[in-house]
């Protein structure tokens, strides 16, 4: 221990460089993890944070909200199923809109943006099913032309009181509340009444004759086995019932984002492993003669290996602290893309990095174990 600490004290620059490199890698991994979680929330937040525990998709959609549609016959069949307490209509679509902020832009190309609109029943048997559950300001819509908007897009003209226009005909929707983590497909998102949603569909396409629900929002009766009920609904012609979590997991974009960013995270961890491993090996080779001498004067192999592992753990531990501090400092500035300082994630990362550093030290440990004290008696041996 003393040996390890003394060496670190006397070669501060070298060990600081490793600690900084590890710190940077730890920061990058934590940042990418935050980005991944934030992006996934922005892809499916609207599904995760809506009130309906069960969603029924059109079978043709293969669990993709954008491709789903429920015909009136299917709607009636699901509503008539045993164990179904309430059924509401839930519509979803991507629309071209303008907001007070975009309308003030000087470049015409910036005046229109994409927004996702969800429409749910405000009255009738399915009233409130599909409503956002994370309201942070204002209120839920109570009439046609009102909406709750995604809090993340407040500054883009989706704050309480703002009027959003669905183009091209300019259907106006007034924002009456905002909710956290309700984005869908990373676009600004509005939760409005079914009637407003249907009107927006007609604005987009004047030839539209009927507007069918994208999915049905369901509440099962008390005491009904969820698995059995879902299986019975799915057995109906052309529909597929999913729990809220199943719908979230099956959403397009979730798997793609996870796989892409997990690849980057894996690469960064591999880099950390190799950087630490090669660095430790290099400093071991550099001090081979000193280690040989120590062995020759009676230092045990275990003493030298312990010193090496202690040194590695201390430097990597310092790197983890540096990476965590960097994240804590920069997370507030990156909160708009979902990056947050999560203590659990940071601690987990610390454990993983320390485990990696011990694994990475394997080659250096082998080299220390192979040192032959007799080599200290030859010039060649001390130079090696």
């Amino acid at each position: 221990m003393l040996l390890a600490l003394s060496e670190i004290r006397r070669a501060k620059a070298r060990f600081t460089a490793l600690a900084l490199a590890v710190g940077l890698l730890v920061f990058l991994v934590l940042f990418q993890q935050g980005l991944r979680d934030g992006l996934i929330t922005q892809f499916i937040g609207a599904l995760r944070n809506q009130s309906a525990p069960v969603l029924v998709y059109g079978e043709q959609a293969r669990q993709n909200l954008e491709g789903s549609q429920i015909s009136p016959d299917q709607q009636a069949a699901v509503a008539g199923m045993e164990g179904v307490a309430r059924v509401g209509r839930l519509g979803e679509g991507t629309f071209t809109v303008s907001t007070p902020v975009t309308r003030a832009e000087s470049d015409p190309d910036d005046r229109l943006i994409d927004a996702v609109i969800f429409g749910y029943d405000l009255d009738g048997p399915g009233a409130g099913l599909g409503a956002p559950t994370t309201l942070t300001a204002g209120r839920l819509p109570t009439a046609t032309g009102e909406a709750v908007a995604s809090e993340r897009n407040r500054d883009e003209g989706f704050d309480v009181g703002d009027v959003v226009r669905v183009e091209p005909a300019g259907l106006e929707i007034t924002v009456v509340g905002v909710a956290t983590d309700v984005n869908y497909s990373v676009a600004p998102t509005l939760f409005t009444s079914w009637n407003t949603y249907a009107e927006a569909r007609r604005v987009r396409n004047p030839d539209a004759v009927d507007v069918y629900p994208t999915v049905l929002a369901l509440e099962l009766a008390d005491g009904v086995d969820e698995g059995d009920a879902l299986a019975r609904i799915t057995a109906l012609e052309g529909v597929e019932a999913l729990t809220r979590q199943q719908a979230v997991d099956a959403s397009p974009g979730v798997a793609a984002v996870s796989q892409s960013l997990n690849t980057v995270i894996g690469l960064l961890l591999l880099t950390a492993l190799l950087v630490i491993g090669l660095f430790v090996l290099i400093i071991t080779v550099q001090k081979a003669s000193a280690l040989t001498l120590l062995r020759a004067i009676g230092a045990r192999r275990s003493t030298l290996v312990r010193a090496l592992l202690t040194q590695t753990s201390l430097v990597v531990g310092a790197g983890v602290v540096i990476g965590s501090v960097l994240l804590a400092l920069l997370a507030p500035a990156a909160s708009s893309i979902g990056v947050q300082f999560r203590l659990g994630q940071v601690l987990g990362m610390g454990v993983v990095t320390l485990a990696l550093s011990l694994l990475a030290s394997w080659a250096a440990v082998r080299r220390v174990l192979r040192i032959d004290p007799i080599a200290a008696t030859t010039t060649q041996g001390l130079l090696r």
Partner: protein
Amino acid sequence: MRMALRELRRRPGRFTMATLTLAVLASLLLFLAGLLDGLYLGSTGAIRAQQADVFVYGDTSRDSFLRSRIEPHTREVVRQVAGVTAVGGLGLALVGAAVPGSDDLADAAVIGYELPPRGVPEPPAPGQAWADDRLRAEGVSVGDVLQLGTARIPVEVIGFVDDTNYLLQGALWVEPGTWRAVQNANRPDARVADDIVQVLIVRGDGTASDEELAARIDAATASLGTGSGATSSLTKAEAELSLPGTREQNATFNQILGVTFAVVVLIVALYFALLTLERVPLYGMLKAVGASTRQLFAGVMVQAIVVATAAFAMGAVVVAVGAATAPAELPLAVEQGRVVSTYVVLVLCAVLGSLASLRRVVRIDPAQAIGGGS
């Protein structure tokens, strides 16, 4: 240099760790590049196949096929723009297709067209379609009658075409009336009247660049009013990148590829720094007998290039085997150009990494060889 090559021949074990590590990275690079190309080609085939210079969308559509709507009066204005030689309509419907003899639905993009894309014959008779090869993997054969969407509109496949897919969905090329029938029966909220198309493709006479032609078209339709006929025109390259997710997909994959190349530089730098460190006494000796820094460093660089080449070959074999055995739905397309560029960049990264050893080689003092150095 000969000595460096001889060392590689006689002590290959010394380079095994670096070669294997780089081989893993090379296979990852090729796999990611293949996936990027496969996704891009599979998504943009329907656009790339068009023999058109400019794509015209409705101005409030944000360049989305599904949100775009072109009325006949807009089409007429576009047709009269100076330099325009041909105008054709396009319409798109994304549906599930029931394939005879298969329990699973196939993802299909029904595309109504007027001007034939490259490799696609003239529009077939109503109720018939040219299918993309991708649908073969879903069990579709010539003569099959597919039932499209929830309304189960029947369409007979009369032949196959290649590389014309849209967002990884197998294209079915039909005449505009068949597209409207599929769209109207399956999506009543997206119904289209007889004379409406979603997008216009425009061919120019070559007197103006594609950008100029697009600007002329938008200027000509601007007077029709926003949302009432004004247009947003894109060149073919812009239209490819306007497809949902394409731009983001390219950016994400290129970021991953960039990180991987940076890792290669770092690994090669650290590995050859270690090798050089181990050889300090030997290099001191060689310098003492007259070897120059240049000669010694050339040896390091040659070894880095050979290691990178061997690693790339191993990685390429792994990816080739993987591509041959991968399921058809995995959009992996390992293009020859991409293989060459990946190899070149990998070698450049290896050379760049080996440069890290240069300083150490320069500093070696020949006096060390006779015990005069430290």
